[in-house]
């Protein structure tokens, strides 16, 4: 049995107000402990902001700057440049934002920072909607998923943020999930050592927003990976794709069954979503094939 091997040095404190069983808190634990003590966090309004903060208490050992929803990447860029001006070139600046603050409202700031290749580590906790404000759809919400603002299921597909970021030719993009904490820690470790803009998208099955049982988010995340709905991959320099889990060995049904937001789906809708997943998988496979494989 593979043991979990990152070191918890107490960089994330108990007493935060994430829901019971929230894997965003679990991901924060892995990320903050891997990033270490020479770091500063910039947090956009999101579940993370609530989890990290609640003035006058902080759940993080490192300093945290709470910024606005549209400007996580811009604020992080400024913090990093300020640190560099002070000669603190090694300090990691980690931006923490949700999919709303990344796919929608913060996209312009992220695109600009990526274009300038700012030396920041940008973490997107992707729970596929505005879950902190009661569960509205975002451009990350997948097709057919029910949210507060798409009561009959969303009609359009999830925005492909990996491809958008890859088009910026930044040094490192990765996806990870709380289904594999070693994978998450390894990717944060790798990103920490790279200069320039690094973006890690973490799939966060949201208990309330997706309708998952309290102890089911890790399992749901694993099913998302195993079914190919959320492939674990890395993109180097915007060109070179690496698939970390190279088999897609399950249909999406088991993944969908874990969640109330997909409960209404017809056989045709499931088939349509399955086709989308299959098409995405093949597209990634092709990218992996033409990659030079300089980083595996």
């Amino acid at each position, binding site marked *: *049995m*593979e*043991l*979990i091997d*990152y*070191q*918890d040095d*107490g960089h*994330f*404190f*108990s*007493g*935060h*107000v*994430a*829901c*019971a*069983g*929230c*894997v*965003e*808190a*679990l991901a924060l*634990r892995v990320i903050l402990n891997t990033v270490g003590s020479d770091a500063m966090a910039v947090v956009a309004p999101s579940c993370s902001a609530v989890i990290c*903060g*609640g*003035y*006058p*208490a*902080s*759940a*993080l*050992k*490192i*300093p*945290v700057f709470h910024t606005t929803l549209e400007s996580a990447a811009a604020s992080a860029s400024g913090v990093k440049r300020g640190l560099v001006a002070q000669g603190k070139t090694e300090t990691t600046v980690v931006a923490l934002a949700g999919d709303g603050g990344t796919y929608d409202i913060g996209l312009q700031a992220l695109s600009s920072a990526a274009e300038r290749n700012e030396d920041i580590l940008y973490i997107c906790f992707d729970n596929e909607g505005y879950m902190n404000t009661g569960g509205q759809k975002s451009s990350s919400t997948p097709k057919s998923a029910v949210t507060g603002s798409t009561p009959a299921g969303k009609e359009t597909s999830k925005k492909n943020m990996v491809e958008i970021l890859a088009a910026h030719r930044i040094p490192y993009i990765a996806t990870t999930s709380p289904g594999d*904490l070693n994978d998450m820690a390894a990717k944060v470790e790798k990103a920490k050592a790279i200069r320039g803009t690094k973006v890690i998208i973490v799939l966060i099955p949201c208990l309330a927003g997706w309708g998952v049982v*309290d*102890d*089911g*988010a*890790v*399992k749901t995340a*694993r099913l998302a990976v195993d079914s190919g709905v959320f492939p674990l991959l890395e993109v180097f320099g915007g060109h070179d794709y690496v698939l970390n889990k190279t088999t897609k060995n399950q249909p999406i049904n088991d993944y969908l069954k874990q969640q109330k937001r997909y409960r209404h789906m017809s056989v045709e809708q499931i088939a349509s979503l399955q086709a989308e997943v299959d098409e995405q998988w093949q597209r990634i496979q092709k990218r992996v094939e033409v990659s030079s494989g300089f980083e595996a």
Partner: protein
Amino acid sequence: MVATDKQQASPLWTTTTSEVRLTGTWREAKPDYHVAPSPCHGACPVQGDIASWIQQVSRSEYYGAWLTLMENNPFPAIAGRICHHPCETACNRQQLDETVGICSLERFVGDMALTQSWALPAIKQDDDCSVAIVGGGPAGLSCAYQLRRRGFKVALYEARDQLGGLMRYGIPSYRLDRAILDAEIERIIDLGIDLHLEVELQDQAALKRLHKEYDAVYLATGASQSKNLPMLDYQQPWVLDSAAFLAAMSHGQNMLLGERILVIGGGSAAIDTARSARRLGKAVTILALEPEHLLPAQTIEVTEALEEGVEFVCGAMMQSTQVKDKGVQLHCVKVDFSAGAERGEFAIDVLTGSEFNLVADTVIPAIGQQVDMDRWAGLLAADQGLAQTDQGWQTSCRGIFAGGDMASMDRFVTHAVGMGKQAAQAISHYLRPHTEVAQVKTEKPVGFEAINSYYYPISKRQKQKQTELETRLDGFSEVQQALSDHGAMIEAGRCFSCGTCTYCDNCFYHCPDMAITKLATSEIDGSPNRAQSGPSRGIGYSIKSDYCKGCGLCVAECPTGSIIMREDTGCSTKQESCS
């Protein structure tokens, strides 16, 4: 300046950590570490702590694994060869890929103990009470071992000139090497057993004398009488008793006449007889009532017998015999066999018109053994041909206990070993009521649904090598070969360790609230399966009631089913430890 630095914090900064919020108050249920029985433990005739010793093997703590095995069974090298392993039939792993090779691992550890001459811990204190054990088979030896470990004076009476009972006189050496048998028996005798060989208790008067002389008596004289087939004339020179044949074989004597041997029966004794005869170069046929898939012998025995060229005629019975010029003709008929509710019970329908003949030079019935209860008539009550005993294996005569084949129809070596152990506990309680406490585990075994199989990639069972078929029939050397060190390590790693924590730290790392504390070594009592772990790994865990929100992720991500959620209605915030 950092946020946690309370004294020097300026008002611009957060002044404290989130730990001031006791989010544990949100909780409705709380995880609880518990040790639950594994299915293999429940099925094991000696109630072995299988999950514990396999875990020790996987950590290379071989001596510790052997001691854990020896708690319940003084014959790991023997059981690792011949046990019918109901543990493997019960194993949860078969619902993922294949059962864990528990028996082969037991043999691995048992053999290592013999090779390295490992010694048992010294007996702590001697007790004045004395116990006589009658019968040096698996039940008697097991009982002698367990009582001697507890400090009692033990005298062992055996009718034959060597110990071992059925293990020596019934099981051929190609299944159980005699050096292994001798060594595991010797280890028991070396504990200081007063041994009386070639002393047979002829009647109840002799038993009464023993009862007077000792504080308690344990009878385990086996089932020494062969059951007889009514349609067979046992006076004929071509009829041979299987028990007598196997006993003679164990001394290297060959009693067979002619080249064509017919064995009647489908149990282990029948297969042992047939395979022994094959090794003497005979043509052997087995005639069994049961269809092949219902034969009472272990599947592996049947498979190996077939490999060795034993012919099987299953689902048929003999009706009469006729001596001809060239051998004995057996008039047989096919039957429709249906198994009954209890082991050994069955019903048959003769299929008319299906008559056929078999020819043989020697006919060996091996249809089971029965107990000679007449010997004890007037002193011990009998029940359906067995010694009548209560739940604590005490006979109708106070102070006389019985077990093994003479008191049970569970006629496997390890069942006898388990009965010996249970009787020893009962005798110990009888002699010293205040010291021996019966262990009762009523909890349900951990089911497959409690195991998080994500953590166990598909991995095929490590198979024991077999001696090549060509050389097998040349002699009586062992057919099954031991696992390699590497194979044993892989096999031990396949164990789910159902209900027994392996200290993998998964619960610790999967808590979103940092509400699980790893306990340091010194905070834990020295139970055997917690002896050693990696440097940064926890050795026991406790739940911080202040922060546990009761989500159950630790339970869901536990690979062994060692944590359960319990409703938590109290408002206690004290730390509760892993027990």
